[in-house]
């Protein structure tokens, strides 16, 4: 079935097929409610996945960026120690590359603190070496020991390293979020199947009469399928609205705050939650269709 014919079937509605099944007030509301709740939960699972995904990506970039080696030594030893440190780094496993920053680069780094006009040449500014790690990283303790003998003025600053386990945790959280979305989808399918089965058995006489007057299974199924698909879709839209509002009203993220306050969507990511109602409707469609055809197939 094409998307267009599907949409036409659902929206324009074969109203006649809809009318042949009696309206079912209470259970209809239950389906609506459950679809709404599931969507509400899915919005949060989605926000969690996207936020932790962003976090893992950002922190991962920082990690890849490197550590810094700072060499503070009397001016006459600075050059020699820098060379010694570079030699050590070149032979260290886990170091992809190491490079001493030029005076101009250092000035650019310090400019925010000192202003562009302070002449650094006259100041005892330490030499910085940018160390880019391989994916495996290096053994920081071993490197420190070797540096202590070769270049005593060198200080290894690997402040980003504490983030490594956090990146792993964020990646795991993202996976869990995605898994939750799948589980929510599965639970929705199960719930709709149960509701559809209940509706089908409650309407056994309707089905028998329709069958007697020559209705094909497709026609009978459509009345139920359309109903559950539309109900799920409307429930999901309401759940989505509540979920989005709840996310909007979370306290704003602060720079140094943890990922919890960063929960939400950014930019184009807002399009993702909009996919939930159509996907929920598709899940409902498939679940009801399967339930209906299975129940009908078992009849004479």
């Amino acid at each position: 079935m094409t998307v267009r014919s599907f949409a036409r079937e659902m929206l324009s509605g074969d109203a006649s097929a809809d009318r042949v099944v009696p309206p079912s007030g209470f259970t209809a509301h239950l389906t609506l409610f459950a679809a709404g709740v599931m969507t509400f939960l899915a919005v949060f699972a989605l926000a969690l996945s996207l936020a932790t995904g962003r976090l893992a990506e950002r922190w991962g970039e920082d990690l890849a960026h490197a550590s810094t080696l700072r060499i503070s030594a009397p001016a006459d030893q600075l050059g020699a120690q820098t060379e010694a440190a570079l030699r050590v780094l070149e032979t260290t496993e886990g170091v992809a590359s190491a490079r001493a920053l030029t005076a101009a680069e250092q000035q650019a780094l310090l400019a925010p603190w000192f202003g562009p006009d302070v002449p650094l040449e006259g100041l005892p500014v330490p030499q910085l070496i940018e160390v880019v790690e391989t994916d495996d990283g290096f053994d920081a303790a071993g490197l420190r020991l070797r540096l202590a003998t070769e270049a005593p003025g060198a200080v290894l600053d690997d402040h980003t390293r504490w983030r490594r386990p956090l990146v792993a945790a964020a990646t795991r959280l993202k996976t869990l979020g995605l898994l939750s979305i799948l589980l929510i989808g599965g639970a929705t399918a199960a719930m709709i199947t149960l509701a559809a089965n209940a509706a089908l058995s409650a309407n056994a006489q309707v089905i028998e009469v329709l069958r007697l007057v020559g209705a094909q299974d497709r026609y009978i199924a459509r009345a139920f399928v359309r109903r559950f698909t539309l109900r799920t879709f409307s429930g999901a839209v309401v759940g989505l609205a509540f979920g989005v509002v709840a996310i909007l009203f979370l306290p704003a993220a602060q720079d140094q705050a943890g990922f919890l306050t960063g929960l939400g969507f950014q930019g184009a990511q807002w399009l993702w939650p909009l996919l939930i109602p159509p996907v929920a409707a598709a899940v409902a469609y498939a679940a009801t269709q399967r339930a209906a055809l299975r129940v009908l197939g078992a009849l004479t």
Partner: protein
Amino acid sequence: MIELENLAYSYGGGELLSDVSLKLAPGSFHFLTGPSGSGKTTFLKLCYGALVPTAGHARIFGKDVREMTRDEIALARRRIGVVHQDCQFLDHLPISENVALPLTVAGRDVQAESQNLADLLGWCGLTPRAGALPPQLSGGERQRAALARAVILSPDVILADEPTGNVDWEMSQRLLHLLVELNRMGKTVMIASHDLGLIRAAKQQVQARVLRISGRRLQLAGADL
């Protein structure tokens, strides 16, 4: 039209019908009689594919029921109007919509057929009750509505199970007349009935054959009725 060949049927216990062979020719008119519980309803169900014979063959419009898909059976039902003994309707829809239901499920334009529908309801004496819901009808009204629903698609075959069980003599004559008229238009008709009076009346209007289920077999009753 409908062809039964050495057909047997059992609900699981002993055989209810054995070795039944019958050809319903187009335009024929049959009555089916037999004691209560002899299998008249079962026989009709075999004729419209609601039951599959446990032995032998049932062919509907040339196709063996055993080889027909559910959709093919559904399509065949549009050419076979059935009046159930216990008429069932969609209880939430008014009689007029129930009678038009075969048109609706066949995807026909109900509006375009509204005059036909009105005529048919009038013929069956249901016009004043057209807006009523099925549970609000009397037994006889339900039977008339079921007959109207069975013939609205102008089917090739009409199978009626006790269509006059709950109506008075005059109304039963009317319904019979409707069936006879349809038969004159070339429809094949089979009526299961205990009502010998009805059968006699029919024989004066149409050449009807009377089948009797007796001792699990289908027999052609003599002209002694």
